[in-house]
C-alpha cells in the first residue's frame, strides 16, 4: 500500500545549504533510507547519502532524523505519524561534505591514536586458551559497527569543536575498554592513558551514547564507568596511591 509522505532533506555543502521539502512515495515496511533512495532515483539524482549494507550491520547511513542520530536503514517510515514530516539532516558533530554526507575522518584519526593490541610474546598461534565468559566482556564492545552515532551525540564534542583535540569519544572508550579487558593483551596502563591522553575524564556520564547505540552496547555502564572507577581508585585511594609511589606500581 503505497502512500505519499512528506520528507524534508538538508541539501547543500560546507559553504551553503538548507532544508528542501519533497513529497515521495513510501511502501509498506519501508525504512527512511528506502525513501531517500527513491528521491535520489526520481527527483534528485545527485543527492548525496552514504549507505552500504541496508541491514544495520555496517554503520554507514548515520544521519539525524527529526533531530535524533539514527541509522536510516533501521528507521521505519511507519514509526512516524501519517501526516508527520520526516526531517533528515547530516550528523551535526562533523563537518559537512555534501547533503547528508559528513566528513567523519575525526574518528579514523582517533582510531590511529589508540595503542594497538599486544599479543603475549611467548604465545604461539593456536596456543591461546580463553574461557567464553572472559572473551564475552570484550566481545560486547567488538560488536561496534562504527556508525559514530555515539560520537555525534556526545555533548563533549557535539557543540564544542575545541574539545575534539583532546577527546577520543565513546567509540574509542569502548575500544580501549575492549583491549583493557582482553584476556591476552599485554600492554599496561590502558586505563591511565584513557584518562590522561584520550579525555576519559571529560565524560560526565549522561549516557546519551548508550541511548543511540544501534547495537545496544552499554557504553557507559560497561566501559566508561568501570574504567573511571578504576582510575579513581588508584588515583585517590591514599593507600594505593602510596603503593604506586613506593613500589613503582604500573598498570592500573
Amino acid at each position, binding site marked *: 500500500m503505497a502512500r505519499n509522505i512528506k520528507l524534508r532533506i538538508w541539501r547543500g555543502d560546507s559553504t551553503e545549504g538548507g532544508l528542501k521539502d519533497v513529497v515521495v512515495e513510501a511502501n509498506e515496511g519501508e525504512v527512511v533510507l*528506502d525513501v531517500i533512495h527513491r528521491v535520489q532515483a526520481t527527483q534528485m539524482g545527485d543527492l548525496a547519502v552514504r549507505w552500504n549494507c541496508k541491514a*544495520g550491520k555496517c554503520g554507514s547511513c548515520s544521519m539525524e532524523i527529526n533531530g535524533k542520530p539514527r541509522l536510516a536503514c533501521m528507521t521505519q517510515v511507519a514509526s512516524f505519524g501519517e501526516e508527520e514530516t520526516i526531517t533528515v539532516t547530516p550528523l551535526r558533530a562533523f563537518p559537512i561534505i555534501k547533503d547528508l554526507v559528513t566528513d567523519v575522518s575525526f574518528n579514523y584519526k582517533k582510531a590511529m591514536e589508540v595503542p*594497538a593490541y599486544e599479543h603475549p610474546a611467548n604465545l604461539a*598461534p593456536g596456543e591461546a586458551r580463553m*574461557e567464553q565468559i572472559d572473551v564475552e566482556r570484550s566481545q560486547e564492545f567488538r560488536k561496534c559497527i562504527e556508525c559514530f552515532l555515539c560520537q555525534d551525540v556526545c555533548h563533549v564534542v557535539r557543540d564544542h569543536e575545541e574539545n575534539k583535540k583532546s577527546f577520543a569519544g565513546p567509540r574509542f572508550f569502548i575500544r580501549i575498554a575492549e583491549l583493557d579487558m582482553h584476556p591476552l593483551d599485554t600492554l599496561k596502563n590502558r586505563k591511565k592513558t584513557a584518562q590522561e591522553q584520550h579525555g576519559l575524564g571529560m565524560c560526565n556520564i549522561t549516557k546519551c551514547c548508550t541511548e543511540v547505540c544501534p547495537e545496544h552496547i552499554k557504553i557507559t555502564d560497561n566501559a566508561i564507568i568501570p574504567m573511571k572507577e578504576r582510575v579513581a581508585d588508584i588515583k585517590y585511594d591514599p593507600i594505593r596511591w602510596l603503593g604506586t609511589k613506593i613500589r613503582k606500581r604500573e598498570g592500573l
Partner: protein
Amino acid sequence: MTLERHKYDVLVIGAGGAGLRAAVEARESGLRVAIICKSLFGKAHTVMAEGGAAASMGNVNDKDSWMVHFRDTMRGGKFLNHYRMAELHAKESPDRIWELETWGALFDRTKEGKISQRNFGGHEYPRLAHVGDRTGLELIRTMQQKIVQLQQKDGRETGDMESGIKVFAELTITDILKENGKVSGAYGYWRESGEEVLFEAPAVVIATGGVGKTFKITSNSWEGTGDGHALALKAGANLVDMEFLQFHPTGMVWPPSVRGILVTESVRGEGGVLTNNLGERFMFKYIPDVFKDKYADNEAEADRWYEDQDNNRRPPELLPRDEVARAINSEVKAGRGTEHGGVFLDVSKRLPAEVIKKRLPSMWHQFYELAGVDITKEPMEVGPTCHYVMGGVEVEPDTAAAVGVPGLFAAGEVAGGMHGSNRLGGNSLSDLLVFGRRAGMGAIEYLKKNGTNPVSEAAIKAAAAKIQAPFDRQGGENSYSLHAELQEVTHNLVGIIRTGAELKEAIAKIADIRKRSANVVVTGGRKFNPGFHLAFDLDNMLLVAESTAKSADAREESRGGHTRDDFPGMDSKWRQVNHISSFDGEKVNVRAQALPTMPKELFELFDVHELEKYMTPEEIAKGGSN
C-alpha cells in the same frame, strides 16, 4: 589544475578481507602499500559475513583435517574447482585463523578454551570459527586494527603514521594502467570531490568482491558492482566460469524493502528447519543421489544428528546452498510457498529463546527491527537471493597472479576457480585470508624482479577523458533507469533457472543496454554525486552480465550455481571444461578451456565410487595426473 599523483610499490583495490590481508602481507615485507576503498574504511561487504570462517582446526571434532575439508570443498563445487586452490585453501586456513587471534581477534570458545567451530552446509565436521553471527565484522575489525598497528610502528620509526601504508577511502578506480604490457598503476576519482587521482604502482592487487548488484534481488550492498571483474577484463585478464552464481537459499522476502538481505546459514546450522505452507519439512524430497549416503532421509535421524553426529546422517537442510536454493524455488513454484513467495525457516521450536538470542543475535535484531518478527517465537519467511559469484579473474593458484597481465593479482570473491560451481558457506572468509595473503606474497615476489613502470601521459589522458565524458553528453538516459533495466533482464533471464532461449534474449538485451549506456548523462556536479558514480558502476555491471549470460548459454548442463531447464542433468564431459571470458574492446568473448587435472595424491583422497558420479570412465581409468 594539477593532477593528484601517488607512488606506491603495491596498490590494493578493495578494503574487504582479501584486500586488507594482502596489504598486511605486502607491508610486513617492507613494501609501501596503498589501500583503496570505495566506501569508508571498515564498511566492506565482508562485515556482512555472518556464519564463520571454515578451517579444519579440529577443535570440536578431532577427526577433521585438511583432507576432509578439501574433499568437502570439491564436492560442494561439483569437482569444477581448481584443485590446487582448494588444496591450498584447506591446508592453510587453520593458520590464517590462528594468526588473526595473535592480532587480537576474539572468537567464541569451546569448553577447553579453544576456538569454537560450528556446523555448516556441506562441511562434514563442525568447522566454522565464529563470533556469534557477526564473524565477518570481527575479521574486518581485526585486520583494520592490524593495519593501525603497522601504521603506529611506521609512525614510531618515521614520524609519519601513513608513510608505509595508507588507506584512500571513498575513492573509485576506473582504469588499471599498463605500459609495455605490464601493470603500471591505476586511475580513479575521489567520490567526495570528483577530483581525479593517479596511482603509479608496478603491482596491483584486485580485491573488489562480488557482482550482486547486477541482479535485482541480492544480499550485496551497492558496492558489489563487479568493478574488479571489469577492470581485469579491460586490462587484458580473463574471467573464468562466470556462469556460476550462488543464490543463497535464505534471503529475507518480506517486507519488500529488505528483500534479499541475508539470513545466515547458521540458523540452519543451529537447528532451523525449512517447511512449506503445508507444514511439510520438504528438504527430504530434494536429496540428490550424489549426497544420499551423507544426508538423513527421515526426521528422526536428522534430529538425532544434532546430538550424535557419529551415528546419524546430517539433516538435509544442511545440503550445499545450490541444492537448498533450488528446492525452495521448486516449492514456491509448485504453489507451496508462503504469502510473500518464500518458505518458512523456523528455529523457535528447536532452541530456547535466550539461546537463540545469544547464538544468532544479529538475526534476532534484523527480523525484529525490519520485519517485526520475533524469531524466538515464530518462523521467518525466506527465499533465494543472489549472494556470491564463483566465477572471477583467472589466477595462478600459488601466487594469485592474474593470467596474462604481469603485475596484476586478484584475491577473494573477485578471483575465480577456488569454489568451482558452488561455494560452501564458511569457505569465503577463509578464502579471503588464504588468498589475500598469497596475493600479497605474489606481489612481493613479482617486485623482486620488476621495478617501477612509469605511466605515460597518453594513458593518463585517456583515463581522464573517460571520467569527464558523462558530464559533456546531452540527451541520453540516466544511470538509475538503465541499472534497473539491467537488473530486470538478469533477474528474469539469467536467474536461478535458465534456458538457452532466454539466455540468448538476455545477451541481446544486455548489448542494447550497453549501447545506450554509452550515452548516459549525469546531472549535477562532480562533488559526491551518486548518479555520476553509478554511471561507472553500470559499465562494470554490464560487462559482468554479458560474461555471465554468454558463459551460461555455452554451458549445456546443470551444475552448482548454474541450472539449465533445457539441460537438467550434470554431464561429466562438461566437468572437464572451464569457460574463459575475455574482452576485445567491443564485446566479451567466451571460449572453452580444459580444466586442470587433479594429481594422483589428491585423486586418491576420494572413494573412486564417488568420483564415478562426477568423472568420465577415461578420467577414472587415468586416476589423476602424475
